[in-house]
Structure formats: structure tokens, C-alpha cells
């Protein structure tokens, strides 16, 4: 969108920003590969290859320079975010299909880099969870107890997909437990007793989320993102989950659990902060982040899908132009109208 003067031009290219975003994802990826399974590394490679191929093909069709746009790294960031939000043992074609859809439809059909109204990675997630709900909800329960080769065979479809592989995310396990049992179930007990839960959120997954938090803080320190969106996202999530938790601790999980489950951390720092599909004005960013956090909680707790971050971000993407229009800061040297 547009912001009033004064404009400061930072001397960084798109590719420098994208490389730093990739670096910021590394702590989360490392924790993922170590605690959940190295399958994620295979998925990252598949997604990156699919993204580069799709990007190259679309650039050719559109008659744009290949080298300039392929080397800017934006396709790689999209691909990595897709691989990190899909189940680690998803078949290769699922990740590839999501990535191709993100690059071709969500990015290039809308005009390419900088023109997309929706976050391409979240479009990929939404398309695949709507089209293949069963495959998209097969999450390995607790750390994969198998070799990298076995994991690769499952991803590439060379080994049968065993049902035992498919667990539920901690969020799903919680929702199912609450639905199945009578009203006398206690979340505190569930969290303490079930194997799938760790110290304060999902076992293993809590440290992956911690890795994203670390990378996100580094991005903020490097001034790649401002504090507004993550703080508003996390703040809104904490406020609504805290209020419901205080109201009935037996039925609603505590804020810490929600912050470190599912896509909350990667969403707050890496997805909702997308400068293209998000808001531009400072107050707009606060509204955008808070709205995404609130919607993510509502969808993941009261909705039918395992997590709500993707849909929350997409819904807020829709509102971003309007929010930007209504939150224009006063022009330099002028008083605010209000």
C-alpha cells in the first residue's frame, strides 16, 4: 500500500532480506530435524526444487528476466515456509503441488513478487488442507523412531504409509480428548499424563517453536521486521487464551501451550510479518497482528481444522488494504485529524 513521506530508503536488496529470513529459520529447522525427524530436510529440498522450477517456468511465460528473479530468494522463502507448515512425512507430490500452486497461482497470476494480496505459503497450506484433509493431518506423534532412509522412502512413496505413523498434533489431541470424554476431563491432567505433551506444549514441537522465536527475535534485532505484528499477534493470542483459561482451566489450555503449539510462533514472526500481503502502517500492523492472533485461536479451538494460523492470516490479508487506508499516520508536520 502507500505510506506518506518522509521515505527512508534502506540500502538492502530483496535477496539480502530473503537470505537473512532463511538464516533466521535455521534454529527452528535445526530443532525440527533433531527432535522430530530429519525428514524435514528432505521436504525442504523438494519444496525448494519445486519452487525454483515453477518460478522459472512462470518467468519464462511472462517474459521476465530469469537470473534477476530466480536469485532474489523469495521463492525459496515461500518454499521453506510451506515445507515447515506441512506434515513432515507428507508424500513428495503434496509438498510439490502446494509449492507450485503457491508460486503459479498465488504469486505470479497476481503479478509476481510484491503484487500478491495473499501470503503464498498460506495459500498452499489452505489449498492442500481443503483438498487432502486426511494427508494433511498425518503428523508423527512423538519424534520419528526411524532412519533417514526410511523417512525418505515414505515421502517418496517407495514404502507403504503405515497408519501408526499418523498421529495428531498436540492441538488435535487436546481437541479430540475434550470432545470424546465427558465433561469431567481436566486439561491439566491431560497435559501431564499423555506422552504427546512435553514440558509446556507438544513434546519436541515446543522447542521447534522456541527456535522460531529465537530466529524471529534475531530478525527484529536486524530490523528486518518491526515489533508490531509479532507483539500484537502474541498479545491477542495470550489475552484470549488467558481469559478463557482463567474462566475454565479444565476446558481450555493455558496461553503458554497455545503460543508454543501449531503454527503460532512461525506465524507470528515469519508469516504475518510478510511485508507484501500484510499491513504497512504501524497502527495497521498492530490491528493486523491482533486480528490474526485472535482468529487463529478461534479457528484452532472452536473450528474443525487442526490449526487456524493459515486461515487467520489469509482472512487478515483480505482486510489489509482497508486497514492501511483507515490507519494512515498524519503527514509529517501536520497534526493528526483525530
Amino acid at each position: 500500500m502507500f505510506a506518506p513521506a518522509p521515505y527512508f530508503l534502506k540500502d538492502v536488496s530483496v535477496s539480502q532480506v530473503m537470505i537473512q529470513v532463511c538464516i533466521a529459520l535455521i534454529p527452528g529447522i535445526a530443532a525440527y530435524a533433531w527432535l522430530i525427524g530429519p525428514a524435514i530436510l528432505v521436504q525442504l529440498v523438494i519444496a525448494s526444487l519445486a519452487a525454483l522450477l515453477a518460478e522459472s517456468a512462470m518467468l519464462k511465460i511472462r517474459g521476465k528476466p530469469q537470473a534477476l528473479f530466480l536469485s532474489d530468494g523469495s521463492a525459496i522463502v515461500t518454499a521453506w515456509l510451506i515445507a515447515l507448515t506441512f506434515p513432515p512425512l507428507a508424500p513428495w507430490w503434496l509438498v510439490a503441488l502446494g509449492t507450485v500452486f503457491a508460486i503459479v497461482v498465488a504469486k505470479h497470476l497476481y503479478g509476481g513478487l510484491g503484487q500478491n494480496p495473499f501470503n503464498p505459503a498460506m495459500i498452499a497450506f489452505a489449498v492442500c488442507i481443503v483438498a487432502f484433509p486426511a494427508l494433511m493431518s498425518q503428523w508423527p506423534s512423538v519424534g520419528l523412531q526411524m532412519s533417514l532412509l526410511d523417512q525418505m522412502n515414505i515421502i517418496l512413496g517407495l514404502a507403504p504409509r503405515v497408519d501408526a505413523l499418523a498421529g495428531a498434533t498436540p492441538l488435535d489431541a487436546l481437541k479430540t480428548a475434550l470432545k470424546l470424554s465427558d465433561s469431567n476431563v481436566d486439561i491439566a491432567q491431560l497435559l501431564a499424563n499423555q506422552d504427546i505433551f512435553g514440558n509446556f506444549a507438544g513434546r519436541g514441537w515446543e522447542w521447534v517453536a522456541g527456535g522460531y522465536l529465537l530466529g524471529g527475535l534475531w530478525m527484529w534485532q536486524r530490523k528486518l521486521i518491526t515489533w508490531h505484528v509479532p507483539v500484537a499477534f502474541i498479545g491477542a493470542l495470550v489475552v484470549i487464551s488467558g481469559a478463557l483459561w482463567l474462566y475454565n482451566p479444565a476446558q481450555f489450555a493455558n496461553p503458554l501451550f497455545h503460543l508454543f503449539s501449531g503454527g503460532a510462533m512461525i506465524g507470528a514472526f515469519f508469516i504475518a510479518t510478510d511485508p507484501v500481503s500484510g499491513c504497512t502502517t504501524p497502527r495497521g500492523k498492530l490491528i493486523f497482528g491482533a486480528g490474526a492472533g485472535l482468529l487463529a485461536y478461534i479457528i484452532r479451538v472452536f473450528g474443525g481444522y487442526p490449526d487456524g494460523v493459515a486461515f487467520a492470516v489469509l482472512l487478515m490479508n483480505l482486510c489489509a488494504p482497508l486497514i492501511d487506508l483507515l490507519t494512515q499516520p498524519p503527514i509529517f508536520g501536520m497534526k493528526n485529524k483525530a
Partner: protein
Amino acid sequence: MITRDEFKTIAGNGIWKQNTSIAQILGLCPLLAVTTNAVNGIMLSLATILVMALSNVAVASLRNFIPHEIRIPVFILIVAALVTVVDLLFNANLHELYLVLGIFIPLIVTNCIVLARVEAFAAKNPPLQSTFDGIFMGVGMLWTLALLGGMRELLGNGTLFGGIDMVFPSLQPIQLLPESYPGFLLALLPPGAFILLGCMIAWKNWMDARAAARAQAKPPAPVATAGAH
């Protein structure tokens, strides 16, 4: 009577130039809801063709007796009567398909294509031309809905002409993709219809742009009707 040129214009408008689905973008509600396979799209289009041809000829015959101020309610009454006939025919003869198409057959009354053709064409033209207009507008709808439905069921299920046994009990749907095809469910849901319809509109615009570019590149053909403006 009708001249050859008039007929060609009417047919060309209906099938391509003013195609209801990909040029006028009318009647999206049945288009999105019904085209989950080619058979549904074709059958609903056939019902619409019947209604459009009959309502166009009825309105064109009566056009000089309908007071201008209340023409829309009168048109709707005529269309509604004809739709009721088609609805009862479907219910009696193709009952299973009638259950699948459900509310969308009675809703042909409110389909803006029917009223649009009655108002824009039949109210101003003689009965014969109006009949052809109704038929060819319907044919334009027929091929777009069949194509859209075919693409959606191919992507979504890997089959073609699913549900054909409801029309011809002796025929079976064609399984085009292997049985293990997981099915791209999105194509069967409304977003899939929107995305594929968008692709079809883009394809039509691309074809038109290419034809226009070719016509411009060619030296102007010798004008047959020289002297006419």
C-alpha cells in the same frame, strides 16, 4: 423470416462472442453449484435451453401485447410457467438426476440468463430469431458447463461423465486416471469452479486478442459490400 447473416450473428453471439458463462459471466450460481461433473452441467444446460427457447418464442410472439411498464413481472410469469413444466418433466422421467440437480431446476426461473435474453432480445425481435437466440445462448452455456464440469470431475475424481448411468442406465462413467489417484478435492468445491472458470475466461480473452492481432496484421480484405457505410 431469417436471413443467413442474421442466423450466423445469433449463433456466433450465443456460442462464443457473448457466451453466457465466459463473456457475460451470468448465471454463476448454478454454474458453481452444479458443474461437479460434466453430466450435471449438460443436463442442467439442456433444461435451460428448453426454457430459453420456449420463453423467448412466447415473449417474442406476445411482445406487442405486453404493456411496457409491467413487462418484467409478465416475463417472469411466462418463464416460471415454463420452468414448472420442465421441472415436472425431469421429476417424472429422470428422477435420480432430478434429485441431484435439486433446487437448481426450479431456480432456472431466477437465472439471469433467461430473463436477460427475454428482455434484451425476445422483447425486441420476431419469434423465429428469438427462438434461435434462446437455443444458441443455451448451447454456449452447454459447452462451457460441460467443459468446466468435465475438468472439475477429472481433477477431483479422475473420472469423466460420472453419473451418466442416471440418464442412460446402460452406460458407465469413464475412469481416466488410475484408481489410486487421491482426488484433488478442491476442484470439486466452489473455489475450484471459480479458479477453473477464471482460467477459461482468460483463455477466451487470449483467443480473442490473438484473433484481433491477426486481423490487424493482415492487409485489409477487399470489402465485399463496397459503397455501404
